[in-house]
């Protein structure tokens, strides 16, 4: 008599798997990667490759030789960490520093806590924060996109090929007592919305082109990897927060559109705040998480010491996720009803 497998229901299984989710995110990051090659050339490829190889390699090494457990280094999650870490670095960064950042991201921020799904902080952002503290100069010197640098070298004089990012220039300018329209007018590059949108400005590898990031984000929405709540509420809250101050004093504060198009918020809102592992489980919790992160990011940008606050805003909110999950619960069926 033949025997059959007996298991509890359900006997049907969906096609949504960890690998599909993770490699789906990698695919969604490709437009930004292509944009980065266009703007920063072969250095962008080198930094991204080194970061990805380091992250996957460290996870493999730890699982294979230290933990001696099943190796899941190729499930795509380490690849995303590597890619996002690289996208948060200037293309001129020395490659050995990228390796150090990758080791920290995976080794300390992820595997120490138990690997995939157990890390409280986004590993790529933790790696970036570690690198920013360790190599402050290399981390804040951005090459100007290749094409622009040639164009504008004809008109104005510049020293070398590096500069601060739009946000950095803004911060420095305001500290020196300037006002916003003047700072923008004297900038070595044009910071108009078009350049900010397509990414033709100084900045980290993957963060400059809002267009490419939004394309990737829409792909993730289409594939149901993320929902729209976190990106929309994060950017919306930053927009409203900076908008209020801009309306109060447009000479001292930049306009809200500039804020959501510049710096790392696009990348952060679509790819890092939405990191499943480090964001709340319920939709209401996600909205709260995103709104507060947006306000934090705006506060750091307008009043903090750093020009950019995106990565810290997300890291800080990551720490609040367990608390949010404890108190913000999904809407229960039959709960809201009067028991009569």
């Amino acid at each position, binding site marked *: 008599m033949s025997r059959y*497998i007996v298991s509890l229901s359900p006997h049907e299984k969906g096609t949504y798997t960890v690998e599909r989710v993770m490699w789906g995110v990698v695919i969604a990051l490709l437009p930004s990667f292509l944009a980065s090659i266009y703007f920063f050339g072969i250095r962008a490829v080198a930094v991204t490759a080194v970061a990805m190889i380091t992250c996957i390699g460290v996870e493999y090494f730890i699982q294979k030789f230290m933990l001696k457990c099943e190796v899941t280094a190729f499930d795509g999650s380490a690849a995303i960490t590597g890619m996002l870490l690289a996208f948060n670095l200037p293309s001129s960064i020395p490659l050995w520093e990228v390796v150090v950042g990758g080791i920290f991201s995976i080794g300390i921020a992820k595997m120490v806590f138990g690997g995939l799904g157990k890390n409280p902080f986004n590993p790529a952002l933790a790696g970036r924060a570690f690198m920013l503290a360790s190599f402050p100069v290399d981390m804040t010197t951005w090459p100007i996109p290749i094409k622009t640098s040639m164009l504008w070298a004809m008109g104005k004089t510049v020293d070398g090929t590096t500069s601060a990012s739009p946000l950095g220039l803004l911060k420095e300018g305001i500290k020196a007592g300037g006002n916003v329209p003047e700072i923008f007018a004297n900038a070595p590059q044009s910071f108009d919305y078009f350049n900010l949108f397509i990414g033709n400005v100084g900045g980290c590898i993957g963060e400059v082109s809002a267009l490419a990031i939004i394309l990737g984000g829409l792909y993730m929405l289409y594939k149901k990897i993320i929902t729209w709540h976190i990106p929309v509420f994060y950017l919306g809250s930053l927009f409203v927060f900076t908008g209020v101050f801009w309306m109060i004093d447009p000479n001292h504060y930049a306009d809200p559109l500039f804020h959501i198009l510049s710096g790392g918020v696009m990348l952060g809102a679509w790819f890092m705040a939405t990191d499943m592992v480090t964001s709340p489980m319920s939709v209401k919790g996600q909205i709260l998480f995103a709104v507060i992160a947006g306000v934090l990011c705006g506060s750091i940008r307008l009043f903090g010491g750093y020009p950019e606050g995106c990565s810290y805003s997300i890291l800080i909110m990551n720490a609040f996720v367990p608390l949010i999950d404890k108190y913000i619960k999904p809407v229960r069926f*039959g709960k809201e009803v009067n028991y009569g």
Partner: protein
Amino acid sequence: MKLKTFKIGGVHPPENKMAANSPIEALSLPKRVSIPMNQHIGAPANPVVKKGDDVKVGTLIGKGESFISANIHSSVSGKVFAVETVMDTTGYKVKAVIIDVEGDVWEDSIIHSGALIKDIKLESAEIVERIKSCGIVGLGGACFPTHVKYMVPEGKKLDTLVINAVECEPYLTADHRIMLERTEEIMVGIEIMKKALKINRAIVGIEANKPDAIAKMEKVAANFPGTEIQPLKVQYPQGAEKQLIKSVVNREVPSGKLPLDVGCVVNNVGTALAIYEAVQKNKPLIERVVTVTGKKLSKPANYLVRIGTPVDMLVEAVGGIPEGTEKIVNGGPMMGKAVSTTEVSVTKGTSGIIFFDKSEARRKRIANCIRCGKCVSVCAMGLEPYLMEKLVEKSRWEEIEKLAVTDCIECGSCSYTCPSSRPLLDLIRLGKANVNRIRWERSKK
């Protein structure tokens, strides 16, 4: 027009309704039937026949004596071979009456003809009594004794009968076929149910993936005032009682309460047909439609099968178990039970027999939870499966109770959708059982 559906959670598994176009065929009589005494929720029936007794089709062989229990009738004529303990579809040992089939002689009281009888002669209380004596249970799969639902306690205001013709389980097509082939009888059955409940409004919920059934039912329903057909958006688990009520009348049954508390009674469309036969023809529940299907099966089919027929006979009828079959499920793929052998018999709750091959039968490797939140977003009861799973692993029952684990309807959407293939529902069931045990112990103090 936007189709109605429920608002919280839900998934849409591949429908795989391969047997939808196969008309119902009556399966030939088996040589021997084994009729278990616990085919329903509640106390098992007590056998009232003994070895050597002669029985006819429709003879009472098991009497349901507790409040929640149901009568059981012989589905064949012949001689009782034994009353003994056998294994049922769930693998438990149960008492069963085994009958050797001789001919096909029906009890004289049963009207054994296909003619439609529209006139309802019985009064409300008599109908409920008939439903009880004929051993009618819910044919959606849970097998709750139907007469219990019809004993409405004093003071409960009832206004709507909801007929569950959703058939949201993939693969299954038994309800779909009876709606196409026995439409009038179902409609009269609904009239009988309305009369028994003393209400005038009935709504039949049908998912939009059965347009032919919707069209046919709408056409016939035009002659039956007070009975509406409500097409619904395809979404699992719409056939769950609470979700269906939400979909068709937009009322939410409060946690821990019954459909009665929002003025509804829910019955399966198959039950409507069984009630028609019981009341108009005095025919007990002795047969049902079973879908036999599977991706590798050359001719998926719907059979009208006598209760107690060995599953082996169904397998033979479709040409044997397909090559490579590793799992056989009794019921739908989302909530049905896997059986270890085909030697079990068809019961009142057997809505389908499905064959799964190697690629579908085994569970996938369990990975770490990536906190994607899918289980939370698909849970039709708005629970937190990921959290309950973690708490069950640590045996923290009191906390699980606070998370309303007992609200779980075990639809399996969480396990279905989990990208890490975590056994969410398995552990939630364990949590539920423990919470119920703790509550029972508490009530004894």
